[in-house]
């Protein structure tokens, strides 16, 4: 059954059921932890932590198993094509997740906030908070006591001061890293392992710089700008969009770190390097999302 030509169907596997169990633990753990926020004597976070340990453990064994099977030559070309399809559709689903947040931002900026400010035929909403004026970024919310608006925003400064603006450096990092990972792949395909490792390390460095800069930006926002999750819809969309993007950068960085470690240990060949290729598609996806995000969150 394990020849190159036939499609490999594992006989049975214990991995999925452990993964499902970890998700069950996760739901209870996350639910109780969040509902118990602020309570002193809650132990629910331990459920959450154990669910993560189980999840990561299972994933480790799962991927090891796949790599082992692949090394034994059990995977036909057709099976590898399945992986390519699977990864592409997974990335598409991620695109749609971000789409929900872009949709929300668009709706808020084009409709909700102007209507609250009394614009158009739905301007009647202005009766609720007379005197509220629509603007973007929204610095003063309709109910400024409950959702105190920020006193500074993250929008792009004058061009002469662009070097003081963190998102500029962040963009530079991510766009460059998309280039370096392409170079790494190209080097690998030519059999230039030294170049491959070098460009991978460069990609990772840029990725980590991005994460650090983003954290600095969040610190600034909370410490000096009054820009928080509770600062009304501007803070809400700012943090959720950059936050989910940042989370995906972290995920991508973890994937690429693992791929780099594997690369240093001699994994991947000129023709067979699906793990790396998948990681690199993911990285390009994260990059594209960032560019769109910079445009609608920071620039326009």
């Amino acid at each position, binding site marked *: 059954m394990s020849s190159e030509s*036939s*499609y490999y*169907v*594992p*006989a*049975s*596997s*214990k*991995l*999925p*059921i452990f993964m*499902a*169990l970890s*998700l*069950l633990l996760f*739901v*209870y753990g*996350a*639910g109780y932890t*969040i*509902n118990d926020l602020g309570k002193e004597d809650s132990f629910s976070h331990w459920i959450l932590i154990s669910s993560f340990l189980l999840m990561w453990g299972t994933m480790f064994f*799962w991927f090891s198993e796949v790599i082992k099977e692949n090394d034994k030559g059990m995977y036909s070309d*057709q099976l590898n*094509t*399945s992986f390519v*399809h*699977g990864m592409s*559709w*997974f990335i*598409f*689903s991620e695109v*749609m*997740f971000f789409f*929900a*947040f872009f*949709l*929300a931002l668009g*709706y*808020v900026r084009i409709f*909700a906030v102007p*209507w*609250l400010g009394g614009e*158009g*035929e*739905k301007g009647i909403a202005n009766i*609720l*908070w007379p005197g509220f004026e629509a603007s973007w970024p*929204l610095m003063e*919310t*309709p*109910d400024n006591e*409950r*959702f105190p608006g920020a006193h500074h925003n993250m929008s792009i400064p004058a061009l002469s001061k662009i070097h003081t603006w963190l998102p500029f450096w962040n963009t530079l990092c991510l766009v460059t890293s998309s280039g370096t990972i392409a170079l790494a792949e190209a080097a690998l395909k030519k059999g230039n392992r030294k170049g491959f490792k070098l460009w991978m390390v460069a990609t990772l460095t840029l990725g980590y710089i991005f994460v650090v800069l983003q954290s600095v930006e969040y610190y600034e926002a909370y410490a000096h700008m009054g820009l928080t999750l*509770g600062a*009304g*819809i*501007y803070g*809400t969309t700012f*943090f*959720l969009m950059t936050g989910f993007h940042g989370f995906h950068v972290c995920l991508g960085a973890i994937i690429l770190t693992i791929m780099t470690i594997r690369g240093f240990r001699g994994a991947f060949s000129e023709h067979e390097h699906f793990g790396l290729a998948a990681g690199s598609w993911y990285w390009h996806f994260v990059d594209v999302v960032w560019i769109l995000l910079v445009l609608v969150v920071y620039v326009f």
Partner: protein
Amino acid sequence: MSAVIESHHDDHHHGPAKGFSRWLYTTNHKDIGSLYLWFSFIMLFVGGAMAMVIRAELFEPGSQIVSPEFYNQMVTNHGLIMVFGVIMPAFVGLANWMIPMQIGAPDMALPRLNNLSFWILPAAFGVLLSTFLMEGGAPNFGWTFYAPLSTEYAPPTVTFFIFAVHIMGASSIMGSINIITTILNMRAPGMTLMKMPLFVWSWLITAYLLIAVMPVLAGAVTMMLMDIHFGTSFFSAAGGGDPVLFQHVFWFFGHPEVYIMILPAFGIVSHIIETFSRKPIFGYSSMVYAIASIALLSFVVWAHHMFTVGMPIAGELFFMYSTMLIAIPTGVKVFNWLSTMFKGSLTFETPMLFAIAFVALFTIGGLSGLMLAIAPADFQYHDTYFVVAHFHYVLVPGALFSIVAAVYYWLPKWTGYMYDEVLGKTHFWLSFISVNLTFFPMHFVGLAGMPRRIPDYAMQFADYNMIVSVGAFLFGLSQLLFLFNVLKCVYYGKSATAEVWEGAKGKGLEWTVDSPAPYHTFETSPDLTNPQTNN
């Protein structure tokens, strides 16, 4: 007359593992398909029990049996379970069983992921049901969970609901990735896209819709979570957000979701009608294009659920016309089914009865949908029992009947045994009568203004509601007959032939293998490049 051909038996090896662990660890598409189908069947009775509580409460006006709070929990969980726990898993189960067989593949493309997709479901619904025992009670804000009812005014269990939806979504996405990959990458040589069976086509497009919109649902519940626990203001106008935003995000998911629940039904019904008409399906390629255009249009009609929230007039018009446009490809399909039956040599075995009832009753649902699509008229219909009548017509004698039809149609192929035809027909007639008894009068009370989701109603609606409740109890009971028939088939059924149905000749690869289909159907794909071997 019987269309069943006498049986012969072949032996096959490569059996499944023994014991209960078989079901926990399995990677076999047939095992996983059975798991999905049984899960869905069990949830049908759980969700059905909730419907019985609702109908018992509404049997007479006034507060009868349950508190209004509990009534709300019943309505909410009935909807959630039927949509996410019955219809969707049943279609995925059918996909698992049939797609590899219909395209000549050895199994699903990613077998371990397949097992994971299934086992997430019991976890998610276990969590959802366990919220009944928690402080504050189960979710009570309707299956559409509109903000701020589901945010500022929600019981604490909403947090568990949110995470349950998250993993349920993950299950759907993984399942769909698997299905789409299987269809695109695992077809037998020679099976071009335009030679694929229609059930496979319908699932290809459904899977695409699922991957496109489940993440949007995940986004919606994530926004809720942030609003409830972390101080954001997506759905709070006080912070510059908008509760209506929730409805936009939800229905951007929600409308394609309703088509997710009907497209596979289109595929199933096409197969059954062509088999029992003993004719090839009329207008195969127009069927494919119709499914594809329904799917594409379904992305631009979502706000027809929101005509009354106060949209600008341009929005009302756009969504009104785009919605009406969907009726065209839908009509194409209905006419194709009728043309397939036209001058066919028809026989009326149980699957065919359910399929014909599907065509007739789904059309009623489609027509009431068209009425709802007229924005000015919808101001009268919205949030009344008319809407409840509409979507139950498309979902119960629509989606659910197609699933029942599929089970009767393919059960002999799965088990190797025939079900009891008399029992099947009894099940059909009882279901057919009771389903209309239940849902048809809802049109009348709805048009007269009876609001949905309220545990009490005005005196003038009493008679119709009593009829509805009687119909509902009867429908509930009839489904026990279905369960009985399936069990009887599995344990005491007569052996079935490979072809099972007289008209199944040349109607797809699944009829070329033994009944029951061997544990591993096609270890090497059949070669269809030569048209002779096709059938």
